[in-house]
């Protein structure tokens, strides 16, 4: 009986959450395979499902899509660069603070936490000024740097926590075995941190991939904006081509889904099992 109640409760929570998540996605999918006329018919499945919208997207056959491939490339480039740079910064910081116990580590951690009191939107104008000063406006680097700035504190925080969980004896064993700090970092630390690194890399990557406000602010040229801003342009007319917008959105949503699927194993972790007796 108890088990039944528990199961029922889980279902009661699970089903609404599932619907809450899936209905909008289904809505996007429905629009993207509908013709312009039937998109707003209110049916659960279009009368004449079609892939024509995707053809239009991929062949850049619409006014708003003239730079589609260019913009998706921008999105990829910015997301990847943000992921890589954030990882590099945060991993080194976490290693130095957690394993090498550098002085001032606590202050850095507190500062990292403190940044969360400041909303990102609050920093948008100062960031715009800063990028302008350095002449980076309208360069993809401006968005990358801004995103690294926003992602790093959280990344450092999470990686530091994960580092702290690695058994300290491994460092000591490596030191006795003759490892320099750099060898320790490369041969012991990085392999053991891999699950966390993948998770944090993915986090930073998706943060940049999904970013709209900063992209909209810092980049203005058709050739430099990422697809997120490009999608926004669809809404600039009164008669937006919803079915094409949704088809583009669906394409835009695929890479994150693929990344999550590919790395789902690392999101759980567990590589350190067998290191020390627990």
């Amino acid at each position, binding site marked *: 009986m108890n088990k039944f109640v528990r199961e029922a409760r889980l279902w009661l929570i699970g089903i609404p959450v599932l619907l809450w998540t899936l209905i909008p996605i289904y809505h996007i999918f429905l629009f993207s395979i509908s013709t312009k006329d039937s998109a707003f018919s209110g049916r659960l499945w279009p009368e004449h499902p079609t892939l024509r919208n995707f053809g239009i997207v991929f062949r850049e056959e619409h006014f708003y899509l003239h730079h589609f491939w260019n913009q998706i490339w921008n999105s990829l480039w910015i997301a990847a660069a943000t992921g890589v740079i954030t990882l590099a910064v945060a991993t080194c910081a976490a290693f130095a603070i957690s394993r090498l116990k550098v002085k001032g580590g606590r202050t850095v951690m507190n500062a990292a936490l403190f940044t969360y009191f400041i909303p990102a939107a609050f920093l948008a104008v100062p960031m715009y000024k800063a990028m302008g000063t350095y002449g980076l406006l309208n360069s993809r680097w401006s968005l990358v740097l801004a995103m690294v700035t926003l992602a790093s504190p959280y990344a450092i925080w999470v990686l530091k926590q994960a580092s702290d969980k690695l058994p300290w004896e491994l460092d000591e064993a490596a030191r006795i075995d003759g*490892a320099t700090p750099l060898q320790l970092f490369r041969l012991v630390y990085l392999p053991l941190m891999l699950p966390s690194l993948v998770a944090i890399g993915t986090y930073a990557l998706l943060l940049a991939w999904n970013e709209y406000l900063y992209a909209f602010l810092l980049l203005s040229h058709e050739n430099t904006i990422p697809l997120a801003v490009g999608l926004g342009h669809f809404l600039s007319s009164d008669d937006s081509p919803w079915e094409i917008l949704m088809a583009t959105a669906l394409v835009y949503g695929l890479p994150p889904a693929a990344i999550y699927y590919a790395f789902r194993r690392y999101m759980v972790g567990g*590589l350190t099992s067998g290191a020390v007796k627990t």
Partner: protein
Amino acid sequence: MASVAFSKVEKSFGNTKVLHGISLDIADGEFMVLVGPSGCGKSTLLRMLAGLEDISGGNIAIDGRVVNDVESKDRDIAMVFQSYALYPHLSVRDNMGFSLRLRDEKRDVIAERVGKAARILNLDPYLDRYPRELSGGQRQRVAMGRAIVRDPKVFLFDEPLSNLDAKLRVAMRSEIKALHQRLKTTTVYVTHDQVEAMTMADRIAVMNEGRIEQLGEPLELYDRPANLFVAQFIGSPAMNVFEGLYRNNAVEALGAHWPVSGAHAAQDQRVKYGIRPEHLDLAPRGIPAEVVVVEPMGAETELLLKVEDQRITMTTHGRSSIGPGERAFLAPRLEHVHLFDAASGARL
């Protein structure tokens, strides 16, 4: 192969002093065991020798060279940790060869030395496995293999058997002992288990509260403990100790006269009378006691008795027909009686 010398080594963590000037010389090829209750500073001493803790005062020398400011990796030591500390992402082979790889040794040299160590430890079949695929005993052997491969001057063991079950612990104990007899490498071994210390050591340093209470060969500690702490720490079951008054070649305690032979105590001195459980006999004219518990173990029987309110344990060979609640008469063997000063605890 090397000697190790601690001279007046001190260690403080903040304001807390945990080692009060330890001096200890370990000979080349010796198997030295540091034993003591937890918190006595034995692991800290070992970690200072390993270079994992700073030295607050005094000197540590390996092979005559003071290593206070020498990095761990340049001390030519190898350490086996209680938790094994195997690299989980490396196979057994790579774990064992890790230190050689860091030294940029050639592949065939690494392969040869790992192979040799694996043969010594019977790890051949497991070389390509990962630590998580091994049992506790096998992991412990890999940790030892990692130490052997380096052919260091000194082996350090930090409670290496504490995580193993009782049966495996006994087996690994003899394996480590046999390994030492084969390699004859100077070894410093830390444990809280006095049985391990007794069975493995060439010499034992019994530590308590940051000091060495006594240093000596296992049987020396057993036969002539320097003070009450060592007397009660070494030996299992522990020595019976109770307080009394020394008078006329006997100790008056628990309403009886406990015989002493050739004592060094003064008349009417307050003393602690110590007698090991195995040095008590049952005799018709002995000191009366009440049997509380009888624990037959086959080869011997352990009796828990009461003299007044003092609990006394004794072990007898073979089986005992005596039952709980009965009266027994105890006769200490004179030559095995220990007397300690009641105030200082020092041997008399």
